[in-house]
């Protein structure tokens, strides 16, 4: 098939209803006899539950079900099963669920919550990672040793939920070379809230002995399996369907409210709707985590990085969740981008008595790239090399070794830097626009990946010449399920994309899928759909070959017809062939599947890692110009330019949309979005007034250039394009501001007070006393590996 047949600016089919207010997101739905659910959440943490008495709630007229931890005994988690549905005995974080009710109206549900009697006893807290790492720190999970470990290999101890390390080459020797400069940088990063417009919401019912969960999620199969786990029921008794999702960004990459609603539905015998209020969303956001990092490099005078060591502390909050997996990704981001002679890295997910964190578009890649690129600038300054020349000299190219010893294929970052240089040379600098303000500019590089994993697809080709694609893919707004997937299938079958129906996710109908996120939708669901289409095509051609008395190799499919190659009008319509096939063989269908294929890393160098190498890396080069007002510290972005590796751009206009949107979210993170915690570990920003996301006046038009041709196992050479645009925004803005004000930028967001303090030399340097001076002292003693 000619890949260019799949390339087009095909517009989204769901825009019409979204624009006219007719799309029914989960929050907009209801069912006959539906009850309203509400959750009682902890006011203060940590605490021991002395008494939880729900009898008054149960006795409230109109209350149909009340549930507590007794109803959901199972623990779940990623890597380690450490999380119960409700707090049982121990409350570990503010807003942790204690009980839930379902009632005829929301007012009754709220009144019932108010009638629940709870007595608690406060416990000593570990709110910050510094507190949690003290030798005498209160343990967030006193029973941590008893938890089921779901994935072997991570270091665990007390408040260290997970530890992953990479050791490659002889870093010790590199750091003691006489001809190297040793550069050290420290960083502290806050949390970022997704602020997806549709809150987490679910409607559950219990029918014919099975649960039906209709929910706003990115991961229908995780919802199915986690619900089964915490309810201790067979996973096959849970069906998950997903209406259009009103924004995800990773927030909905985990099971959330679904088990509560399922339990309430079972107990009440009625459908139950449960929706987070905006305040609940803010308090239980599963933010991009706060982190603290130290990175040190040994660099020769001519700019060779002979050694790099780093310690990264990631706050997972009260439960491990996604951060346990993300310790892996530090290797490929903080130690990504550049050739390194030797490496020593430890990443730790730390338990604290705070709300759990989670996944957020490009996850820790965003702050790791910020830290790495700022560190890179500090290295260049120290050795007196131009920062761009330093990057150009060191970026990973074909045949180079990555952090864990994988061999990279193809050159991407080098040519992309050249492309950015050419773009910049072709237009004037915006320096004049800065006027009397301080001007800064930076170009940075970034590496992220496609979280490949299993996907399945089934395609039915109907006798009217239309096709339907059945997958567990969810449309979260990125457009993949309404653009790339039908485009790929249509191109393979010679149809128009509008003839390809894409079924909404339903775990009863489609095979397993990891979920929509991690840049994997186009790659994994697209590849599974393409494989299914190829099977349908083969069957279709076999029948057409008989009908047209022509060997299948001499036939081509396009514009809804099967023609003898090169002769227009010689053949017949696909609908007619599908009809004939239906008569001869029965209805035409095909199935497809896709999953990872392992990439080799250097054996033994990575420990506690969920993946040891990047199967499909994605690269990005960003550039920005800023003006900083010296009197106020206000940062204005003057220009923003992106060169993004997309493999093959199937829908260039939709990719541009993702880049503009992702950069805007990155600008918010770089300049003003920050979730902070008070001394009790409570989240301070509980609404849109205190948590400021970018407004129209805060953004700039992004100049976008797509880099095609880097190797990818994705369908037709495509890569995910929606996740990566946010990756190096904080890095680029951070480097540009640092250059403008000639100060070390060690923290984001770069709010005016923070920038002004730096300009006035009143910003204390980031100190991380809980990171030991010697790298080895930050690593748990581990039994030696059997070789």
């Amino acid at each position, binding site marked *: 098939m000619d890949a260019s047949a799949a390339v087009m600016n095909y517009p989204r089919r769901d825009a019409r209803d979204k624009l006219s207010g007719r799309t029914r997101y989960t929050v907009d739905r209801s069912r006959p006899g539906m009850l309203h659910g509400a959750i009682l959440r902890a006011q203060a943490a940590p605490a021991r539950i002395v008494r939880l008495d729900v009898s008054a709630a149960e006795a409230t007229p109109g209350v149909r079900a009340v549930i507590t931890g007794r109803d959901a005994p199972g623990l779940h988690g990623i890597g380690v099963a450490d999380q119960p549905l409700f707090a049982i005995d121990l409350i570990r974080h503010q807003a942790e669920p204690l009980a839930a009710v379902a009632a005829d109206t929301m007012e009754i549900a709220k009144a019932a919550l108010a009638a629940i009697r709870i007595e608690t006893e406060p416990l000593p807290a570990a709110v910050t990672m510094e507190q949690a790492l003290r030798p005498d720190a209160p343990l967030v999970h006193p029973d941590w040793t008893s938890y089921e470990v779901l994935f072997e290999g991570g270091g665990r101890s007390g408040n260290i939920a997970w530890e992953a390390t990479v050791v490659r080459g002889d870093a010790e020797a590199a750091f003691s070379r006489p001809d190297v400069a040793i550069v050290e940088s420290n960083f502290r990063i806050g949390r970022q809230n997704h602020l997806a417009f549709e809150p987490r919401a679910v409607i559950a019912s219990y029918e014919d002995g099975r649960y039906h969960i209709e929910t706003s999620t990115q991961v229908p199969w995780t919802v199915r399996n986690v619900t089964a786990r915490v309810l201790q029921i067979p996973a096959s008794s849970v069906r998950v369907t997903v209406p259009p999702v009103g924004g995800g960004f990773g927030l909905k990459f985990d099971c959330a409210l679904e088990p509560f609603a399922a339990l309430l539905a079972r107990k009440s015998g009625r459908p139950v709707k449960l929706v987070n209020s905006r305040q609940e969303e803010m308090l239980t956001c599963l933010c991009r985590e706060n982190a603290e990092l130290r990175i040190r490099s040994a660099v020769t005078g001519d700019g060779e990085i002979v050694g790099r060591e780093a310690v990264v502390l990631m706050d997972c909050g009260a439960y491990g969740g996604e951060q346990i997996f993300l310790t892996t990704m530090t290797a490929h981001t903080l130690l990504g981008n550049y050739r390194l002679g030797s490496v020593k890295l430890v990443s730790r997910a730390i338990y604290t008595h705070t709300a759990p964190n989670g996944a957020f578009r490009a996850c820790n890649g965003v702050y790791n790239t910020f830290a790495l690129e700022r560190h890179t600038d500090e290295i260049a300054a120290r050795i007196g090399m131009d920062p761009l020349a330093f990057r150009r000299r060191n970026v990973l190219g074909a045949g180079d070794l990555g952090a864990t010893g994988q061999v990279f294929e193809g050159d991407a970052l080098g040519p992309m830097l050249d492309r950015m240089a050419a773009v910049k040379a072709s237009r004037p600098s915006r320096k004049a626009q800065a006027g009397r303000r301080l001007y800064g500019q930076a170009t940075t590089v970034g590496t992220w990946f496609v979280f490949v994993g299993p996907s399945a697809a089934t395609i039915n080709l109907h006798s009217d010449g239309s096709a339907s694609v059945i997958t567990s893919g969810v449309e979260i707004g990125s457009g993949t399920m309404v653009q790339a997937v039908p485009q790929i299938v249509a191109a393979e079958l010679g149809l128009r994309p509008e003839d390809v129906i894409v079924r909404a996710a339903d775990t009863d109908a489609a095979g397993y899928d990891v979920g929509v996120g991690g840049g994997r939708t186009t790659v994994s669901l697209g590849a599974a759909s393409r494989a299914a289409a190829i099977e349908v095509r083969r069957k279709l051609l076999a029948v057409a070959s008989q009908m047209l008395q022509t060997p299948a190799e001499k036939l081509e499919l396009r514009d809804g017809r099967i023609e003898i190659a090169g002769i227009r009008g010689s053949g017949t319509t696909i609908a007619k062939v599908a009809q004939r096939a239906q008569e001869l063989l029965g209805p035409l269908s095909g199935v497809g599947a896709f999953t990872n294929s392992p990439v080799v890393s250097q054996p033994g160098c990575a420990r506690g890692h969920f993946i040891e190498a990047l199967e499909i890396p994605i690269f990005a080069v960003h550039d920005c110009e800023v003006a900083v007002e010296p009197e106020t510290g206000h940062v204005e972005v003057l220009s923003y330019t992106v060169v993004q590796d997309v493999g093959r751009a199937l829908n260039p206009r939709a990719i541009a949309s993702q880049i503009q949107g992702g950069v*805007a979210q990155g600008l918010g993170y770089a300049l003003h979005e920050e979730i902070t915690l008070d001394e009790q570990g409570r989240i301070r920003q509980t609404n849109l007034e205190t948590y400021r996301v970018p407004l129209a*006046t805060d953004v700039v038009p992004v100049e976008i250039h797509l880099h095609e041709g880097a190797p990818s196992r994705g369908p037709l050479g495509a890569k995910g394009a929606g996740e990566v645009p946010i990756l190096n925004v904080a890095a680029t803005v951070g480097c540009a501001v640092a250059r403008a004000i000639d100060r070390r930028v060690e923290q984001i967001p770069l709010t005016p007070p923070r920038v002004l303090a730096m300009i006035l030399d009143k910003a204390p340097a980031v100190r991380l006393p809980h990171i030991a001076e010697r790298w080895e002292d930050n690593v748990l003693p581990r039994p030696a590996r059997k070789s």
Partner: protein
Amino acid sequence: MSISLTINGETHATNRDPLTPLVDVLRDDLALTGAKAVCREGFCGACTVLMDGQPVVSCLLPIASAAGRDIRTVEALSDGGELSPLQKALEQHDVVQCGMCFPGMTVALTSFLASNPNPTREQVKQSLVGNICRCTGYERIIDAVLAHAQAMQGGG
């Protein structure tokens, strides 16, 4: 006490508490779920409707204050299933993503364009500050609005 509301040209009587926000009556009682209650505090604009032609956030509007006024929701912009010219432009430029902000945004833009048929880029930008979008980064919406305004000028 019953309150009488005029919504998209139809009269509805409701016995709800006079302080009930209009958005709840629209969504829960009238199945007009186009207006979204995203923040309920007047910050995001996703619940915007027109009251006597002026955009208002329906999450802060008690039904008592809406009584007897002419309320138009996003559903009225595409009466009979036909998208308005502005909506068509937004569809054709492929600017929608998750879509949660667009009902409020199209209502606000419709009213803005009615009084500013030929706006500058900066004016369109300013007009959107009350409508937050978490997905798109705004600029491509602004491109579409400007193209639409120009086309309307050319055509009219």
